[in-house]
């Protein structure tokens, strides 16, 4: 619903009265063949956390790109502190005090923490020739301390950014924004790559930024976070601003249901499929599809013993850095391993994902852009890459492009993937649709065991539900699934049992009965964070 033009000018004058720091007035962005933003008018005030929510493809990222100067609007304008501004490149926005913390962190891995924080604004001496390293370090320390980060001692400041954890790198990234004296901070899904504890710490930090009088813009798929910290929430759908919610006098904001409803334009039932149906049939009789004995990724995890039956979904919970991904990667031969893996009762030692694939074990990476997919290649090429041999003739001398296309079309149909042109680079699809392809390409290899890492990272609510349904159906058809996730509701809603990892080993396990209890999420958090020493039965 686009506001009529008179309402826009009203909104603008209101915004000025209320001291909107940054505002967009009927901003439209056209990409070839698609209108990404359609007359969006919105303002952001100092001392306020303004959350933007919407499904993938709703226009959130485009709006943020407009605000941060990397996309120029086709129509409409931006106003900063009341006067019109036009950014032609990101550095214009940064100079104007608008800083964006990207989903993909932009640190220089070979520089140390202090250098990264002060990158581009290094304090100098000797007429600007030499970098004043002590002052650089002091200033970086000051900024990091302001954030409440642990990276303030000399040793930490000298660490290379490439060695930091994702959570630490994010702190550095934010400190970088503060170094540029940003008045407007834009966070694009900052908690997507964080475990629960790091996430809550980050949210506290956002509040602090707000209390210091900055305008904080916050994009998130986590509606619970939005409801918890946002002062205002605006919902985008199909490039239009659908609705804005403000916190009322009593301090309450719209509920998650109302937000979700506004986002998808329809009521969502429970997004988790009924679990009872998905239980493995004859669980006692079926032999194990995959079995780990004293397994681990050398140096990262160890002593993991676990068996998954056909049709069973086992969840892997744990904080970031607890060794979940590393363990999965070791199973399919991407890392050095220790211990024993048995597939269908036979001991295996995969040298690489190809060997794992041939034995029926597929791994869908958590890092869709960097590892899971080739973003520059077409959807079809991505779809068929792991199973390419099935479409080749004459010993690989010819790839049957028609057969490839047919396979892609088939999965587009069965997974309801929104993809009009499978021959275009897959980066043109939304995160949810990319994820469906990432899953489909491995299902095409006909696996018996599917290890799926963060199945819904960066995926919107609607597509999440569909992916859950797909996983549940696969399990019902006899696939053994290991689901690694940092989202507890996802694990509790989807898995038959959940293994909790901490510090590279299994801290405990929750059976189906325990998962069904209302305090299951708390139990998982306690196990993952080391608050509870109770060892659940797992053998």
């Amino acid at each position, binding site marked *: 619903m686009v506001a009529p033009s008179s309402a826009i000018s009203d909104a603008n004058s209101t915004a000025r009265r209320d001291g909107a720091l940054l505002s967009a007035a009927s901003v439209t962005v*056209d*990409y*070839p*063949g*698609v*209108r990404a933003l359609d007359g969006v008018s919105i303002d952001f005030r100092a001392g306020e956390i303004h959350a933007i929510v919407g499904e993938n493809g709703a226009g959130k990222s485009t709006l943020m790109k407009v605000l941060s100067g990397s996309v120029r609007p*086709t129509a409409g304008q931006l106003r900063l502190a009341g006067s019109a501004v036009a950014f032609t490149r990101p550095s214009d926005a940064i100079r104007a005090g608008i800083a964006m913390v990207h989903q993909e962190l932009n640190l220089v891995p070979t520089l140390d923490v202090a250098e990264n924080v002060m990158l581009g604004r290094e304090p100098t001496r000797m007429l600007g020739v030499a970098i004043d390293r002590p002052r650089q370090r002091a200033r970086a320390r000051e900024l990091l301390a302001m954030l409440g980060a642990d990276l303030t001692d000399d040793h930490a400041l000298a660490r290379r950014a490439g060695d930091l954890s994702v959570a630490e790198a994010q702190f550095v990234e934010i400190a970088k924004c503060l170094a540029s004296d940003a008045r407007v901070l834009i966070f694009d899904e900052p908690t997507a790559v964080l475990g629960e504890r790091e996430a809550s710490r980050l949210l506290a930090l956002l509040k602090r930024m707000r209390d210091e009088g900055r305008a904080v813009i916050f994009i998130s798929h986590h509606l619970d976070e939005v409801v918890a910290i946002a002062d205002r929430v605006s919902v985008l759908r199909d490039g239009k601003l659908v609705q804005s919610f403000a916190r009322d006098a009593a301090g309450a904001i719209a509920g998650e249901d109302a937000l979700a409803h506004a986002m998808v334009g329809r009521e969502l039932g429970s997004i988790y499929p009924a679990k009872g149906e998905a239980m493995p049939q004859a669980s006692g009789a079926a032999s194990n599809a995959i079995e780990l004995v004293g397994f681990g990724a050398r140096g990262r995890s160890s002593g993991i013993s676990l068996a998954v039956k056909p049709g069973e979904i086992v969840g892997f919970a744990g904080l970031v850095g607890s060794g979940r991904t590393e363990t999965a990667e070791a199973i399919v031969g*991407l890392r050095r391993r220790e211990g024993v893996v048995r597939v269908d009762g036979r001991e295996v030692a995969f040298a*690489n*994902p*190809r060997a*794992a*694939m041939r034995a029926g074990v597929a*791994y869908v*990476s958590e890092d869709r852009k*960097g*590892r*899971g*997919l*080739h*973003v*520059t*290649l077409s959807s079809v*090429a991505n779809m068929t*890459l*792991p199973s*390419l*041999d099935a479409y*080749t003739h004459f010993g*690989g*001398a*010819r*790839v049957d*492009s028609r057969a490839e296309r047919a396979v892609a079309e088939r999965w587009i149909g069965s997974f309801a993937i929104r993809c009009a042109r499978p021959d275009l680079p897959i980066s043109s699809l939304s995160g949810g649709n990319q994820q469906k392809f990432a899953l489909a*390409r491995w299902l095409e*290899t006909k696996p018996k065991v599917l290890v799926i890492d963060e199945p819904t990272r960066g995926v919107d609510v609607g597509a999440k539900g569909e992916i859950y349904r797909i996983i549940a159906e696969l399990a019902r058809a006899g696939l053994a699934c290991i689901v690694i996730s940092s989202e507890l509701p996802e694990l509790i809603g989807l898995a038959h049992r959940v293994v909790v990892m901490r510090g590279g080993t299994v801290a405990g396990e929750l059976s189906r009965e325990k998962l069904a209890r209302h305090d299951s999420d708390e139990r998982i958090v306690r196990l993952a964070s080391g608050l509870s020493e109770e060892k659940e039965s797992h053998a």
Partner: protein
Amino acid sequence: MSARSNDSRFRIQPFLEKWGVIVAFALLFAVSTWKQGFDFLNPENLRTLLNSNAPVGILAVGMTLVIVSSGIDLSVGSMVVLSAALGTTAMNSLIGNEWSEGSAVALGALVTLGAGLFAGAINGSLVVFGRIAPFIATLGGLAAFRSMALAIADAGEIRSQSSTLFGVLGRGGIPLAYESAPAVDATGEAAAPVFHGLLNGAGKPLTLPYSVIVFFAVAIVAQWFLSRARFGRQLVAVGANETAARYAGIPIAWVRFRVYAIMGLLAGVAGLVQSSRMNSVSTAQLGLGSELDAIAAVVIGGTSLRGGFGRVWGTVVGVLILGMITNILTISGVSPYWQGAVKGAVIVLAVLVQRGSRD
């Protein structure tokens, strides 16, 4: 919908990015024709243009594949001279041992190709198993392979001992004219032959050189492999994102190894063409600097130096563009010392025009 009209609007940048190499080729062709008139369009001149650029063209085709895999091969010129030196030496010693010319030439050719393949396999092993950056590994090859060739001949020339057969590949071709029937006149004496078709300045039939046929055949096969075969898909996947390729179960080591081995084999082919053409191998000169010409042709042709995207047909046009530039500069009397500057400018210009959304 306004978005549609936006879409169909003509934009110069994407157009040049895709077709710039053709535009440049057409422009150069037009300029050459304007400057030289019939002298340029003369089939004999065009034949010379193709013929003289065939060896570097063969290298450039291989280089396209290497660069698509986000690698580079600096050692191609040295592989050319080493394979040619070994092959010619082998052939000469066989002829010296009273072998028939035919079998000596055939075996010499096999040695040349085999030496190229082997040198390429060494590069591939260093890159894949030694985990040495392609730039460094092949920089080593650039020095080492040339030095071996120099050592074989004391930095001198290896002259072929084959009287005629060895020169067929480099100098022979399919005649583009046929001789009309009676070669005997009324008096019974031999008459001057009458040819129908394309003739050279001396009135003899013009030939389509075998080396040009080899060049185009290699290019067509490579283009097919790049766009239609599994190996090409794997090359693109490895070049675009090696990590993602590993996660997708692509045998990265095998793909990378093969592309360097193929490059070596093609260097052997170029070495064979060159030694056959000269009937000798100048170990100090042959293939010197041809890695730069090959890389330049690839870049002009629109293949991304970052890997993950490439087109062999563009490289072929790039080779011809470089050839025409040399041709036109020589005809216009520009000092050879200045020709490098012009070529350099063209290469930089090609990259400027073609950089776009792929960056």
